[in-house]
């Protein structure tokens, strides 16, 4: 049986890779779209038998993150794995297949007055892709990121075996937590096919408190150390200013006005309270010709980080409360990345290049220093001894 | 007293949860399981199951301060107080002490429970202190080990003769509300006569006739808490006899009060004394406990001072008296009371502990001194003379001085309108 036959036997939906299927310029020979977990397992088993390099893909909204794969024989597209397996509303838990778009999940949950407390990511993003990239937005401050909300995961290993960890109860310490391990692993350990999440009630009311400020730092600190329990503390720092600070409070309708007022007092006389987010809210820059950076920092390092990023010519915004900012850097300034990284290091801050225009990857260290890299390589060796899963996409060339 | 046969049952009450660990002074110091209550109970279990009492075992039992903080923190109601009491007696019986240990123990138990012998020591001690360390003494190494505490006592105690000796009866001021007996104690009587005088005055000012029996001696606490049960029983019988005429016996030393409340257990095996002992125990009250039960009547005058209140273990853990002294202090106008961090941890004085385990006692004293210093208080208030001496000595090692007073002395100053001078210029 040749490769094509083996793949077709495992998965009825296999086609040749098109130009549009290229992962950062690397075009796969085949694209398989399994419709069931069994088909996904069969696909990976066939790929293992034939030594194929595999890149899992959801909606592809963040496929440009990370480095191009060293090889890519097969893209496994999860979008046909899009069922809501179980929404146990009374338990505030949902179990879904990985290819389900997050937006659609949100609609289903909203029907019961609930939500997965992750910001709506880029339009069309799937649950699996969100997990694989560990992507989160402003709400991370109060609810945590994907790693904190996933309570169970089902994966297909590189060898095609289906494995599960966690479960569908929130409180559970039986066995290792593979859910957290696979979150943010960029498809290098296996294929995420299903996951369970803890849910939160949809808040009855929201208020956004925004203010233009000369220096966002005192405002951010004031809100962070207050008892206001903000759901998000964001900043917007375009080059040349002015800076803006935005705070989201969520809760019962009867209390929201008082709480927003409390935050407004902390932000100063220029603060405004509204029902809608400011235009810059949760909008990481998406210009294809620029570098998209993620800056991680202890919140108190904000002034230093803003200064360094500003001098490097970056436009900065994002979650000052959690210390995760995004920044856009013109491709022409790519050479400034190592220097910026060096300037951030003494501030205990880090820089990861999330996405870069084609052609820039080769000369660029996307990830910066990675502590415990040796252990990570050993984890990779265990899960994917043949180094066939998204090879080269991840930190340290994993 | 608890019979050794009861040990397995008492040991079984421990579920090994570990809640006692953070309140145990020796665990706090060394972080070792066998120097925690849970570990010591485990050692007792090993012994009860047939393991001979090894020197290492005895060492861990000796290292226990008997502060009973573990009894307070135990959610399962383990009676560690009874466990350690029986175990100490076993150690005394089964564990051969070295000659040096025997000498120190012999000296301590021949000295402390006897007020007259203590009194005899005061003059020479003062001379000793003035002359510096005597060479001969240093050669024996004996007094060197026990001298820091004795010297501290001497420094803290007022000069002999100035303190009034208490008459056998002190009459109530105004309408009499109660007739109480008063234990004068050994160390209290000889080194802190001022505390006894203050206690008697406060009781009288609050409307109590105070009876101070001439023939009282040591209550037996020191012996009881060191595994010398027979000796303790002899002291107990004498004390029971001395106080049988009064309704309430008021005690101002925490260790003595806690021992007297346990007389029933101590003499339970003696048919002639069991009932009398139980009756006496039931009538015993700590001074603060009694005053709160009685309720304030005398006028309180301001004492503008900042004080830190220290919980003596034998008051807080052994007798559960924590709120009453604080309530009394809170009733003094102008007084600011500061809490000391980690109040449940022993200061290291613990009866004879600072004599037998000077190093651990010193470390615990240092920790307590640091916490006391952090309160910024100018006066340390405690209901046990040993604690005050221990903490003051530890502060002095750091080159700091703090005035000390007994709760009774503060109340006395307030009731008599002496102000700050009543407690801070002694």
């Amino acid at each position: 049986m040749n490769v094509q036959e083996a793949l077709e036997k495992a998965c009825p939906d296999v086609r040749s890779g098109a130009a549009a299927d290229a992962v950062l310029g690397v075009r796969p020979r085949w694209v398989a779209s399994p419709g069931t977990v069994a088909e996904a397992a069969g696909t990976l088993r066939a790929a293992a038998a034939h030594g194929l390099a595999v890149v899992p893909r959801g909606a592809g909204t963040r496929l440009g993150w990370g480095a191009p794969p060293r090889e890519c024989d097969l893209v496994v597209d999860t979008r046909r794995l899009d069922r809501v397996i179980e929404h146990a509303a009374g338990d505030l838990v949902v179990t879904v297949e990985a290819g389900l778009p997050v937006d659609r999940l949100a609609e289903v949950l909203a029907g019961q007055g609930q939500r997965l407390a992750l910001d709506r990511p880029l339009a069309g993003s799937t649950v699996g892709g969100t997990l694989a990239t560990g992507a989160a937005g402003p709400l991370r401050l109060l609810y945590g990121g994907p790693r904190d909300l996933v309570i169970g995961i089902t994966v297909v290993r590189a060898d095609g075996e289906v494995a599960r960890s966690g479960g569908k109860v929130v409180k559970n310490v039986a066995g290792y937590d593979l859910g957290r391990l696979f979150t943010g692993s960029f498809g290098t350990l296996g294929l995420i096919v299903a996951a369970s999440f803890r849910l939160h009630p949809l808040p009855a009311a929201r208020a956004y408190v925004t203010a233009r400020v000369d220096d966002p730092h005192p405002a951010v600190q004031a809100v962070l150390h207050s008892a206001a329990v903000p759901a998000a503390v964001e900043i917007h720092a375009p080059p040349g200013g002015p800076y803006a600070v935005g705070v989201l409070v969520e809760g019962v309708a009867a209390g929201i006005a008082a709480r927003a007022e409390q935050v407004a007092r902390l932000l100063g006389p220029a603060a405004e309270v509204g029902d809608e987010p400011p235009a810059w809210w949760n909008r990481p820059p998406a210009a294809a010709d620029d570098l998209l950076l993620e800056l991680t920092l202890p919140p108190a390092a904000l002034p230093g980080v803003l200064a360094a990023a500003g001098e490097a010519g970056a436009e900065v915004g994002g979650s000052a409360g959690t210390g995760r900012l995004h920044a856009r850097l013109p491709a022409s300034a790519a050479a400034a990345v190592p220097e910026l990284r060096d300037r951030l290091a003494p501030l205990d801050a880090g820089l990861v290049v999330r996405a870069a225009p084609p052609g820039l990857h080769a000369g660029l260290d996307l990830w910066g220093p990675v502590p415990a890299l040796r252990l990570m390589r050993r984890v990779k060796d265990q899960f994917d001894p043949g180094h066939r899963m998204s090879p080269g996409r991840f930190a340290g060339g994993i | 007293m608890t019979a050794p046969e009861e040990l397995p049952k008492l040991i079984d009450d421990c579920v090994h949860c570990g809640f006692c660990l953070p309140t145990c002074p020796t665990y706090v110091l060394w972080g070792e399981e066998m120097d925690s209550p849970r570990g010591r109970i485990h050692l007792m279990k090993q012994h009860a199951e047939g393991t001979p009492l090894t020197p290492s075992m005895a060492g861990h039992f000796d290292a226990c301060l008997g502060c009973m903080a573990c009894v307070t923190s135990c959610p399962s109601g383990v009676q560690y107080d009874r466990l350690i009491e029986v175990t100490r007696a076993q150690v005394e019986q089964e564990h051969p002490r070295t000659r040096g240990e025997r000498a120190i123990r012999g000296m301590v138990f021949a000295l402390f429970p006897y007020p007259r012998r203590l009194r005899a020591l005061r003059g020479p001690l003062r001379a000793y202190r003035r002359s510096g360390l005597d060479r001969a003494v240093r050669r024996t190494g004996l007094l060197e080990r026990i001298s820091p505490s004795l010297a501290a006592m001497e420094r803290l105690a007022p000069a002999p003769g100035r303190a009034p000796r208490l008459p056998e009866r002190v009459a109530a001021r105004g309408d009499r509300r109660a007739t109480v007996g008063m234990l004068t104690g050994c160390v209290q009587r000889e080194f802190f006569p001022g505390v006894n005088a203050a206690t008697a005055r406060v009781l009288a000012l609050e409307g109590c006739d105070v009876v101070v029996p001439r023939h009282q001696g040591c209550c037996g606490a020191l012996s009881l808490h060191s595994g010398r049960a027979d000796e303790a029983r002899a002291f107990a019988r004498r004390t029971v006899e001395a106080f049988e005429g009064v309704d309430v016996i008021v005690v101002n030393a925490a260790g003595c009060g806690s021992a007297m409340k346990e007389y029933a257990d101590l003499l339970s095996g003696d048919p002639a004394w069991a009932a009398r002992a139980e009756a006496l125990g039931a009538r015993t009250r700590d001074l603060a406990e009694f005053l709160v039960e009685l309720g304030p009547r005398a006028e309180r005058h301001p004492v503008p001072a900042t004080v830190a209140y220290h919980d003596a273990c034998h008051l807080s853990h052994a007798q559960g008296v924590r709120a009453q002294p604080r309530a009394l202090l809170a009733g003094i106008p102008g007084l600011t009371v500061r809490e000391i961090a980690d109040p449940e941890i022993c200061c290291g004085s613990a009866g004879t502990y600072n004599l037998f385990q000077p190093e651990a006692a010193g470390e615990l004293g240092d920790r307590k001194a640091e916490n006391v210093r952090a309160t910024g208080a100018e006066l340390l208030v405690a209901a046990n003379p040993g604690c005050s001496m221990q903490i003051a000595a530890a502060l002095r090692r750091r080159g700091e001085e703090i005035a000390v007073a007994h709760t009774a002395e503060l109340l006395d100053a307030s009731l008599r309108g002496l102000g700050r001078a009543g407690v801070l210029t002694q």
Partner: protein
Amino acid sequence: MEEITRALVDLLGPGAVITDPVRLRTYECDGLTHHRATPGVVVLPESAEQVAAVVRLCVAAGVPYVARGSGTGLSGGALPRTDGVLIVTARMRRILEIDIANRRAVVEPGVINLDVTRAVRSEGYYFAPDPSSQQICSVGGNVAENSGGAHCLKYGFTAHHVLACEVVTPDGEIVTLTDGPGYDLLGAFVGAEGTLGITTKITVRLTRVPETVQTLLAAFESIEAGGVAVSAIIGAGVVPAAIEMMDALSIEAAEDAVACGYPPGAGAVLIVELDGPAAEVEHQFAEVERLCRDAGAFEIRIAADDAQRALIWKGRRSAFAAVGRISPAYLVQDGVIPRTALPEVLGRIDELSRQSGIKVANVFHAGDGNLHPLVLFDDAEPGAAERAEEVSGKILDLCIEHGGSITGEHGVGVDKSRYMPRMFTDIDLDTMQMVRCAFDPAGLCNPGKVFPTPRLCGEVPGVRKGVHPLVEQGKADLF
């Protein structure tokens, strides 16, 4: 053992190495006393470098080792090895840094959970994970067990409050696991029950003390009525800080022990605590109170101050130990079910109890379906312990049957590893153990815990072609 003991003494000094058999035996168990093993030797290191050196000695000698914090675990996770070294972190108890501006603190593993809160309380912060043993359990132990507590319903577990861990790996290397780039090894490490290495420094997240805390105690005729109230509260979109329930038997025990003064005649009491901004809590609290009444609460007490709140919690917190007063012996079970299955599972437990004649007291974190049935028996009665063990095991089966878990917070340890195959397939367990093989291929770090059967890690990880030689020779099985 003698050789490594000598080396350990050379390394750490005699004061940090315990070899006396009588002393060693005091370390034979943690909070779960029916698994016992006297360690070969105990060491009390005071720094990460010392821990790393001890681990390297063990690796070189092929000697297994186990880390232990305060020894309060309830699954035998710190059960020593008779042929191994027990590494006790009780002397690594410094709070190294308090960084309020960044809402974090750096502590050594032996620091007691509650001491972190004590150190930052005056700044308006606390460390959120609050296991019942928080006054003595160590932060290192919390990391190993991914400890929760009554308030994890709202605030999450230790994993959500640890920002970084310095770890001595099973190679004896000191590395720092963070939330930075690369795999979330920190996420895998927290809750791995000490099988992936020993943490020597922990950066914890500090949480702002809430503006308001409101606590009520509601008494119901029956557990079922209490369960209805829980569902109603959750259904109304309220996320309480905690919802705890106790049944009649555990109320009786707590009453005996600490005289908590719960309403007499209650078949169940519910403790509901809300915290957060006053404007939020006030409204939700009124609703919670109404929902409890609607569900049939015959008495509701609202704590007016901290002292009253403490009294309400006193009964709940003392429940485990208190049961010791009404029963000569008991097993504490820890299982999880979906919250909505509460009424049915409790009914089935009641049935089990009646059939077996073994009494079961129920104390549980009702908000997240975490049951703590206390299985009571008289250890003097022949066969009672076995029957209790059987009931206890059947309760876990019930949890699995209802899609729950065999442990919500006590961990698998040595006690429940045999139940793991009931919850997970061989492949699941094999996959988890790939992580273990990556960290500890020699299998010396807390061996025999979590997994019923160790996985064969292979000589050198890498491309594996063909059948493993040991499998071929019939000497080992691969899953």
